[in-house]
């Protein structure tokens, strides 16, 4: 790997994003619009005694889900384009290392996710009065880690798609089961044993648990750091798998 090539690649990906004004607008506006929707959905639902109001519980988890889902989709399409347009094959004939490319995507879209998470969190906290025991900074940190997980999974899954139609079909495969089992819809300890086991094998579960820890505790807990470390570990494993799908030679 080379710092110069990694920096050039990150800059190139961000420049591509900068030229795509509509995508930027969607990245910024959509989370806010969806949070607004969620706010009004739960507005009249009474909070159970002693528990946070439903909006606080849902919005906190959604702040982590957005960047994950969006960055997964954006990355799998971007990487698929690299594969189909011939730029990937060309890049692999240059001094660029595979990891320069993968980390370039991770950093570039991680930065985009940080901006998105900051805006969405600002809206959630200051417009809709989201209340968490822990600090906003940790929420953003977890959201960005989660976004990078989405990037890594997108880089990996793009290897199994030949067309953009196929690539978007990986969204339901990768994102929806993890979202269903992460504890947002049904608390994990109330699920059947085998579903709990499945849930424990999926990285998004730990990201959501980390967010819930921030929601319930004033200071960062050991469990939160452990969860965050598991998500980061999943990122590394997925990136290594993604690197294995980048072959210099093909048939």
């Amino acid at each position: 790997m080379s710092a110069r090539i990694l920096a050039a690649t990150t800059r190139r990906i961000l420049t591509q994003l900068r030229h795509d004004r509509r995508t930027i607008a969607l990245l910024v506006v959509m989370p806010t619009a969806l949070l607004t929707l969620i706010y009004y959905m739960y507005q009249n639902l009474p909070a159970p005694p002693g528990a946070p109001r439903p909006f606080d519980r849902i919005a906190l988890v959604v702040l982590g889900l957005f960047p994950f889902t969006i960055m997964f989709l954006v990355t799998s399409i971007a990487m698929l384009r690299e594969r189909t347009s011939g730029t990937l094959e060309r890049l692999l004939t240059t001094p660029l290392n595979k990891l320069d490319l993968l980390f370039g995507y991770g950093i570039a879209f991680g930065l985009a996710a940080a901006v998105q998470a900051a805006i969405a969190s600002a809206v959630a906290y200051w417009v809709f009065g989201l209340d968490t025991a822990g600090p906003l900074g940790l929420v953003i940190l977890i959201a960005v880690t989660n976004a990078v997980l989405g990037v890594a999974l997108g880089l990996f899954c793009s290897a199994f798609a030949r067309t953009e139609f196929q690539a978007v079909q990986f969204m339901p495969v990768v994102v929806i089961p993890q979202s269903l089992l992460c504890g947002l819809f049904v608390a994990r300890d109330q699920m059947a044993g085998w579903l709990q086991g499945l849930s424990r094998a999926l990285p998004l579960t730990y990201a959501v648990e980390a967010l819930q820890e921030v929601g319930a505790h004033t200071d960062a807990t050991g469990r939160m750091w452990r969860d965050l470390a598991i998500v980061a570990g999943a990122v590394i494993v997925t990136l290594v798998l993604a690197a294995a799908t980048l072959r210099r030679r093909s048939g």
Partner: protein
Amino acid sequence: MTAAIEVRDLVVERGKRRVLNSISTTVPRGSVTGLLGPSGSGKTTLMRAIVGVQIVRSGSVLVLGQPAGAAALRRKVGYLTQAPSVYDDLTVRENARYFAALYGYGATAADAAIRDVGLADAAGQLVASLSGGQRSRASLACALLGEPELLILDEPTVGQDPVLRAELWDRFHALAAAGTTLLVSSHVMDEAGRCDRLILIREGAIIADDSPADVRAAAGTTDLEEAFLRLIQEREEAVATPGDRAGSTAVANERQTP
């Protein structure tokens, strides 16, 4: 000094089809070698094998004395793919600067490459908004970057206006005079005369591998297109298998391409 490219008994198979059937050839340094043949003859496959991105069945390819695809070759070999491979959502300049950065060159080298392919006026335009010819020149600019020792150019002049085409060929010869080795593929015979050496391939086999003058002499005609046709016919009469007859109609059709 070793040859720029040494291909020995190269066999490439795709599925059950043999795309390259035991090809051997040597490309000397500092020359412009034309790789000619109809589409589907195996030109691109041979070029990919030389760049080291093609899975080969058997045989060897040595590039600048090292096995094709060796890590050290990546900064010495420039490759232009047949379909332009640049980023549509970047400007010409942004593309060139990115590829320049990969080789450790700055903005000056990138701008020079853009000028060399005659795109200085369009440097600030998004590649997506360019014409087909401009787009392939943008791709060419990115291959010329970094003063590679060996340039593998897959149909660099397709769709270019005649004046520009002549300029590009002048540029290729200037590079060769300065010591660069160029392997340039084309399916247009009038470009064959501009090369120092010609390799004609058809159905995965080499039909001719000589200087244009020697190819003309061997076939007994001054017209290269006619010369190739005679060489193919001679070869077919020698081999005379029914399967090859169908192929010769294909090559006749291919020759219609201007």
